[in-house]
Each structure stands twice: as C-alpha cells, then as structure tokens.
C-alpha cells in the first residue's frame, strides 16, 4: 500500500477538496503550482538557506541517555523545539511564504489556536515584509495572551473569531471566509496537514525535512537510517506528518500517533479523534472528525491548545484506518507529568502537546535494542502559565 497522497488528492478514503465554488480558483492555483514551484532549484535553494541560517536547521537528533536507561531502550529526540519561534511550525510557514511570493501574493492570512502557528506566520511575514492577518478564536485570544502580544510585536493584525465556539475551528472558518472574500491577492497559510488538497500534502512536504534529517542523523549515530518506531503527538498532525513522511512506506518502521484524551475518552472532554471521530467533512477535507450524530462538529478539549482540533489530517485518518499506525491517547494528567519528567531527566521543558508523545513509553513496551525517535516538536515556554497553575510552581 502507498501511504502518500494520490493524484486526486486522496489518502485512501480520505482527503480531497470539499470546498465551495468560491474557493475553487484559489485552490486550483495552488494545486497546479505547488509541486512545480517547490521543485525549482531556486526555490529549494532559498528554502534550504532559510531553514539553515534563519530557523537553525538541521535540528539535533539527541540521544536521551537517562531516559533510555530508565526505559531500557534507545530513545532519540528530534529537537524541533530548537527551531526559531520554538516549534516545528516555522518549517511550513517558511515554505508557504516563499510559495506565496512566487504566486505574486501580497497579503497573508492564517488561523491559529494556541498561537504557535500564528507566531510562525507573523514571523515569516515580517521577514518578507508582507501584510499578515491572523484569525484567532476570541476565547483563545484571552487564554494565550503572550502569543497574541508576540504576533502584534511582529507586525501582524490579530482578528478575533467571534462565531461558533470562538476557538480554532472557528478561526479556521473565518480565515477561509477571508480567503473567499479576497481570492486574488491573498494566500492562506494553513498551519497543519488539514484543509482541502493540496494543503495536507503541501504542509507534509514542508515538514518532511524532519524525517529527511532524521535519516542521515540516524545513519551517523546508529549506522542505519531508520528507527524501529517513530512517535509524535497528533492534533491536526503536522509535526507527526513531518516525522513519518520518509518512513510512511518503510514497513520496517512502526508508526505511533499520540492523541490527547483530555479528561478521558468517555468524559465528553477529549480530543482523541481516532477513538471518538467519524468519517465526515471538515474544512474542505474528508477525514475523521468529532461530531454529533446529526453531523454538527463538536468542540474538542485538551489541556494543550495545540491538540484540541476536532479532526485529524486525512493522511492520519488513512494511517489509522489502514492500521499502518498505532493510535494511542493520553489524558491531561499523564501528559503534564511527562512535562516534568522530561524536564528533570533530560533538562528539556517540552510543550504540553509534545509531552503527550512521551507518555507512549508508559503505554507500551519497547525492546532494549529498539531505536525510537520522538518528535520533540515544541518547547514549553509558551505553557509556563499552565505548568505553574498545575504544579503550583
């Protein structure tokens, strides 16, 4: 089986472009150009140079010695938390801003939940001197004040999404509406492997630098370019898509996806889409999403704002249904505890999203000679308030 997108924009049963006709020209323009433009040597050169000099790539593949000893296995961390702006998100925004420039776009819009993608977008817009508007749920604006301030400082306009539940999915709706109203001069930088084709594939390709580097870094350190397991947290799924990308069709590599169980799968306050979701359409993509029996999209919950998206990207829906990936879900409490564990055992304070991934070590057994690569996707600075409240620091 091939786990990459097919020529029609589907991953198995999932994907496609279920968009209103008003968006058709915008999406068509992208679909016809994204592969061509990103394959141009001049594009690649500029992208690679920015990733190196501006983002700080390659990020280290770090052997976590103490953690490996404790769990009697070989644990590596792909240090995306060391990227400029504090997470992997910037890999994608650099790629998309370069693409937008080549398409002649003069205005950028984005959606953001916790604000990480908003900051990464505002950053590259500042870098390129392009107007930037970030849609953010009114509730999230209140919850994530430091990131709102960062975006403003970077020169972006933060527009509150006041419709629906006033969170990430509504911010995404507002960004899509903006794009409908401004079809010619505007590019919409989606932050995850979600949305209509070609977004899931395009974002996955920009994030694929994560597994591209992992391959040669593992070769240097282990004498083989593949691990036994790759593990990442999944909200929409962009950091996971980046880590899995070059191993999708390599069956020697086991793929593990960690979702946020929130307060528990059966509590009604969860973001574990693979367990709770049903096939449907969200933001232009056919995928698994959390919804009422009547097909209304529901509001997910997780202590980490970056994982509370009611769907998953179509690639992940396909990995789940085809059983190519193992999906597990981790409740708030265990993720928070892992935030402390990683801090105190390796000196790395992870984002709460990232902390979810590590909890896989408690859920399943790994052999002493097995090599595991975790995507250490983001750093915990942005979550300090939550950590302070939770642990009474």
């Amino acid at each position, binding site marked *: 089986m091939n786990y990459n997108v097919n020529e029609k924009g589907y991953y198995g049963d999932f994907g*496609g472009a279920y968009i209103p*006709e008003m968006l*058709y020209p915008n999406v068509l323009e992208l679909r016809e150009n994204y592969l061509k433009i990103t394959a141009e040597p001049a594009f690649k050169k500029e992208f690679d140079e920015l990733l190196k000099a501006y983002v700080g790539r390659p990020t280290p593949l770090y052997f976590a010695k103490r953690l490996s000893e404790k769990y009697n296995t070989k644990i590596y961390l792909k240090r995306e938390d060391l990227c400029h702006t504090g997470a992997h998100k910037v890999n994608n925004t650099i790629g998309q801003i370069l693409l937008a420039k080549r398409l002649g776009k003069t205005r950028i819009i984005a959606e953001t939940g916790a604000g990480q993608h908003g900051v990464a977008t505002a950053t590259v817009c500042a870098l390129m001197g392009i107007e930037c508007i970030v849609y953010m749920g009114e509730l999230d604006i209140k919850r994530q004040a430091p990131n709102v301030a960062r975006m403003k400082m970077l020169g972006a306009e933060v527009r509150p999404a006041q419709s629906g539940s006033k969170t990430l999915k509504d911010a995404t709706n507002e960004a899509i509406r903006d794009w409908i109203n401004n079809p*010619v001069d505007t590019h919409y930088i989606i932050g995850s492997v979600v949305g209509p084709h070609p977004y899931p594939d395009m974002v996955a390709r920009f994030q694929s630098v994560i597994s591209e580097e992992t391959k040669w870094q593992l070769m240097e350190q282990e004498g083989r370019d593949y691990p036994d397991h790759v593990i990442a947290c999944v909200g929409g799924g962009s950091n996971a898509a980046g880590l899995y990308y070059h191993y999708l069709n390599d069956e020697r590599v086991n793929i593990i996806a960690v979702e946020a169980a929130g307060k528990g799968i059966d509590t009604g306050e969860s973001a574990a889409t693979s367990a709770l979701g049903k096939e449907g359409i969200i933001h232009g993509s056919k995928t698994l999403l959390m919804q009422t029996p009547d097909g209304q999209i529901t509001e997910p919950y997780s202590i980490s704002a970056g994982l509370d998206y009611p769907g998953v990207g179509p690639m992940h829906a396909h990995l789940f249904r085809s059983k190519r990936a193992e999906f597990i879900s981790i409740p708030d409490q265990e993720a928070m505890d892992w935030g402390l564990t990683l801090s105190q055992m390796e000196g790395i304070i992870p984002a709460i999203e990232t902390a979810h991934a590590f909890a896989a070590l408690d859920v399943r057994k790994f052999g002493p000679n097995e090599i595991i690569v975790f995507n250490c996707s983001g750093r915990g600075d942005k979550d300090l308030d939550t950590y302070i409240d939770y642990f009474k620091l």
Partner: protein
Amino acid sequence: MNRIDRAFQSDKRLLSIYFSAGYPNLEDTVPILKKLQEAGVDMVEIGLPFSDPLADGPTIQESSTKALRNGMTTEKLFTQLQGIRNEIDIPLVLMGYFNPMMQYGIESFCQKCQAIGIDGLIIPDLPVDVYHEHYKEMFTKYGLYNMFLITPQTPDERIRYIDKVSNGFIYMVSSASVTGAKNTFGTVQTDYFKRIVEMQLNTPTIVGFGISNAATYKAATENARGAIIGSAFIKWLHTHGVEKIEEFIHPLKSS
C-alpha cells in the same frame, strides 16, 4: 415536471428566499414557508443549519447557530416538513453543507427529500466533479435537482462544465464573497452578469449573495432569471418576526 422547471417556464422574474430552518424559533419553519408563499415568493431555499458554515457570512452563521441551539436537526426538519405539499406548491430547495447529509446517509437523505416533495438541493461544499462522479445517479433516481454555484472568478470552461452537469438553475454568486457581504453592485458585478448572459447557457441563472433591497434585486434580475435573498431576510426576521414577512416581500415584488 420538477417544480423548479415549472417556475422557470413563466416569463416573470423569480424571487427566491433563503432562511435557516428553526430560526428564529424551532417551530417557525412551516409558518415562514406559508407566509412566503402567500406573499408571492416564487421559490424557497430552506437552510439546513450547520455548525461550521464556511461559505456563509455572519448573519447566516448566527441564524444557523441559533437554530441549532433551538434544537434543529436534520430529522427534526424532515418531521416539520412532513405533509408540507398539502399546503405549499412553490419549489422547495434544501440548502445545506455536506457533512450533516453524510451522517444522515446520502441515500436516506435523498429518499426522505423525495417523500416530502423537495425539488432540489444546494450543497455549497460538494464540488461539481465529486457530485458528477459519485452522487448524480442517486439524486436523479430520487428526482432531486442539484444546483451549483459560479462566481466572477469561475473560468468560462468550468462554467460550461457546470452548465452541462446542472439541472434546475445555476446559482450565480454576485461577487467573490461569503453570503451577505455586499450592499451594492459595482462594475465588476455587472460586467460579470453580462459575461454570463453572453455565454448563452442552457441552464437558467439566478443571482445570489449581496442582494438586500429592491435596488439590488432589480439590478440582479436585469441580467438573470431571478434572485435569491438570504441574509437581508434573516435580519428582517430577527427584527420584525414571522408575522410581517409580507412587508419585506412586497417592495421587492413590486420593484
């Protein structure tokens, strides 16, 4: 004959009204339909509320959210519309997003529509090619028309394709916008209306989005067979309630 085709057989301009089922109150759906028919409206689009209506502006998003809070569901709407054909003879179109229909089951949904006497569907996020490949046969089996949108940005070639696949009418979105966004038409719109007229399509066209008063209604229907009013009608309902619908319709019909 499908009631939509029957409506287009007459020479007059067609006024079509959109509202969200279950708004302002859950049980207003049928009373609104009756009032609209009495006031001389030629066709109605009944909006099936959705939590995430991304092609709609703030007015319809709000009426949709309110309707859901009132308890509107697909099943509830079908129950309300049971027997509607004893009282309402004008064409009825259901307009809604694809996800709730998928969850109901597309075939069951179509079956139910036929049983009630729905004439057609407008599903903004079901692209024409997906419809053509996967659903056209089923819709046809249950006697349902499916209407598509075109915009000023839709290339001629694609308009031709939509014209070929369409039945009923083509829904001309007046500008590149979500519903309810504009109040007047500029030269971009009128040039676009003229371009479509010159294409001499087989399917009749109706203009929607941004029509709010007699002036925009008149301008729209100079270049198309009819016009659809949604957000402006919902705002009227919000302020004046169901009883005064005739006062909203009258100036339009006599413009």
